[in-house]
């Protein structure tokens, strides 16, 4: 009923980020390795949209302060970068998948606590089929904060994606993770800066 009135009165609220589902990832990583031969690359990215308003510089200051704190106190290896679509990425490198998930969660939770929850777009975890191959095929698990769900993304050359393999992974992942059911939301992230 509240939803009805919200729609009627046009007062939809920003959807809060849902972070807990992230912790299903380590067990999903084991399943991925045994059933699809995919191993984590040890890198993940947190993507968010910087707020563009008067206090922009201040916000940026807040975020880098937060990240510096995370770097120093929790010894998270992270770098920052801006992509060409105006989004900000925090790239975290950590070979242990359990630790990586904890770190990604820490960065997300920190941003959320600082009030940037609605700006969080997604977290991306890198996987690869052949880590020793000089030109490995990458697969990504994208975590949507607003939906609390994951979906696979396997880019090919020239902004194409391997839909067959993605749908195959859907079945494998469903045991351990909440996989995004609505296929229309499996948006690609071309040129994702995570390896």
């Amino acid at each position, binding site marked *: 009923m509240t939803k009805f009135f919200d729609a009627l009165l046009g007062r939809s609220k920003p959807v809060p980020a849902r972070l807990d589902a992230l912790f299903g990832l380590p067990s999903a990583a084991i399943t991925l390795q045994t059933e699809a031969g995919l191993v984590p690359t040890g890198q993940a990215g947190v993507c968010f949209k910087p707020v563009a308003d008067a206090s922009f510089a201040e916000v940026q200051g807040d975020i880098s302060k937060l990240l510096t704190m995370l770097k120093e106190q929790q010894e998270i290896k992270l770098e920052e970068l801006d992509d060409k679509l105006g989004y900000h990425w925090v790239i975290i490198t950590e070979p242990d998948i359990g630790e990586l998930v904890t770190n990604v969660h820490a960065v997300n939770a920190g941003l959320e606590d600082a009030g940037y929850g609605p700006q969080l777009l997604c977290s991306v975890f890198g996987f690869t089929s052949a880590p020793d191959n000089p030109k490995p095929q990458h697969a990504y698990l994208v975590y949507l904060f607003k939906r609390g769900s994951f979906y696979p993304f396997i880019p090919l050359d020239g902004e194409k994606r391997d839909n067959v393999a993605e*749908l195959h992974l859907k079945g494998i992942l469903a045991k351990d993770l909440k996989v995004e059911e609505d296929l229309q939301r499996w*948006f690609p992230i071309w040129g994702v800066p995570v390896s």
Partner: protein
Amino acid sequence: MSTRYPKDPGLTARMTVTIFLLGLLYVAFIGALLAVGVSYTVVIVIAGALLFAQYFFSDKIALFSMHARVVSEQEAPELHAMVDRLCALADMPKPKVGIAESDVPNAFATGRSPRAAVVCVTRGIMRRLDYQELEAVLSHELSHVAHRDVAVMTIASFLGVLAGLITRFTLYAGMFGGYGGGRDNDNNNGAAAVLGIMLISIIVYAISFLLTRALSRYRELSADRSGAILIGAPAALASALTKVTGAMSQIPTRDLRSAEAFNAFFFAPAFAKGFSLSSLFSTHPPLEKRLEQLARLEEQMRHPA
């Protein structure tokens, strides 16, 4: 002429029966109109004019409604090269080539004659299909052009349009003109005649609707068949069909970051699950049927009788 592919007499027979039934319906309808003794010249002229416009401007209408535009060879060299080769293979004039900026995987062909035809693909289909699959789709669309499907379907739907118009006209005439003031028996008879025409028109409309849909499905199957034969790879068309009609067609190719601006940041819409009407009303045959036909062709190509 020798060909590795046997003919498909079943498909031809079903199509002929459908066309015959349409023609029969046509004659019966005109007969019924004459029997109730009313002149419907005006309506027939209007219906004719509508269809003439549709026939003549089909390419422009289709391009406009799909937000597509014709592209030059410089803009889309690969697509043009593909169409060039297929036209040479099929020995037909090259149609104009169009692209629609849509993520929905689709393709269509239109135009009243092979000379005035346009073959159009969406960005979504170009991103999703590999080279061979796209070639198969273009080959299917070129078959529509070669079969003059726009002309065939326009003529076939003439009766439906006519019956629909008459239904509407008699309805308005009844609503605004009244079915007689009730002074004598003549008016009552007139009202009965008008109601009779309306009833007949509704029935004719319904039957011709079903028949044209059936005809359209047969045309699709023939285009699948000729398209697959032209490139000699039924499997490529089958895999393209699976990609654009199955679950895969729902997976977007537009970037999350650009989609997000108006999509997922602030609301979580619950898209209603689409419902499909019975296959009786559908303009395209079900996917299984098309795949089945292509698998049969593939089999015949490997083991020619």
